[in-house]
């Protein structure tokens, strides 16, 4: 068991009190009538599945019952940050990789398991494109 910091209760609470609710910061197309089937399908069904930093929506289900965001590392499960709805994350895939670079940590390119593995196309694997249908 571990503790999660609820930004509304302003304290750490037992994991048991929380539920994950999937990827955070998904925007509903502003004009659903006008958007393409593909854009609508992406919005409804397609989610990122990055290896590394991921922003997720969680709810403090047995507590204040507010939704909030967690930035979590999908490899180490480390919670890097929690923040309220409507706020922007301060820890992102980019900021973490910069820090790794500065610290001289050798990291596999996004989505690849092995350091030095060479993706056929770097573009398919760049952070902004993770989880897209390849």
């Amino acid at each position, binding site marked *: *068991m571990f503790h999660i910091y609820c930004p*509304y*209760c*302003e*304290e750490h*609470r*037992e994991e*048991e*009190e929380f539920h994950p609710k999937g990827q955070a910061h998904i925007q509903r197309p502003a004009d659903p009538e006008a958007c393409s089937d593909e854009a609508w399908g992406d919005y409804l069904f397609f989610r990122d599945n990055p290896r590394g930093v991921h922003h997720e929506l969680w709810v403090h289900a*047995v*507590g*204040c*019952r*507010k939704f909030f965001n967690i930035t979590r590392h999908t490899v180490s499960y480390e919670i890097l940050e929690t923040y309220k709805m409507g706020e922007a994350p301060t820890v992102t895939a980019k900021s973490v990789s910069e820090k790794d670079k500065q610290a001289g940590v050798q990291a596999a390119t996004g989505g690849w398991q092995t350091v030095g593995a060479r993706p056929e196309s770097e573009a398919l694997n760049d952070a902004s494109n993770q989880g897209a249908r390849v």
Partner: protein
Amino acid sequence: MSDVKEFDTRPAGSPSAESPLAWSFHRRGTPPREAGAGVTLREKAFLGHMVLRGGAIVLDEAVREVLGITLPARPNTLALDDSGERSIQWLSPDEWLVIVPGGEEFALEGRLREVLGQAHYSIVNVSGGQTVLTLRGEKARETLMKSTPYDVHPQAFPVGKGVTTVFAKATVILRRPTEDTWELVLRRSFADYCYRWLLDAAAEYGVTVER
């Protein structure tokens, strides 16, 4: 004045009412009185419970005027009036639980609505949906430690604190209005389960139920 329709949930006359724990007492009775019991349980039945939602500033003005209690704005805090019979507890950034002596809630709701006028808020009378169970005694904290993952050490849980948390896999509101009293606000549907859990958990310390 708002145009919300109100109704008194306490019917006229005196039809018999049953607390959420009536069935538990009826079926299981209460454990025989033990001298030097480590834990004493007592239900505070039929209190007036209301959930207040809205902005803290607007609600604060209203409850100060009507109840004479300052709205607890800090998370997980509980404020009581001088008699200790009326309380307001923070539940979430826009939600508070008001508990008053039974019978006061309808008039209180009316007065709050009068003061709040056309402000954006909601008041819901939830008196029928929950009940309060108090835990006292030398081993009360020990019993809680077996039941909830929340830290109930006096340093982490001072008087005046209240939280909604997991309790024996159910959800309860746990609060500490005074030095030696813990209060559990139980949902009606969890009441029997939590009561029986407490009897079992406290059995080793000796448990008494005041009626």
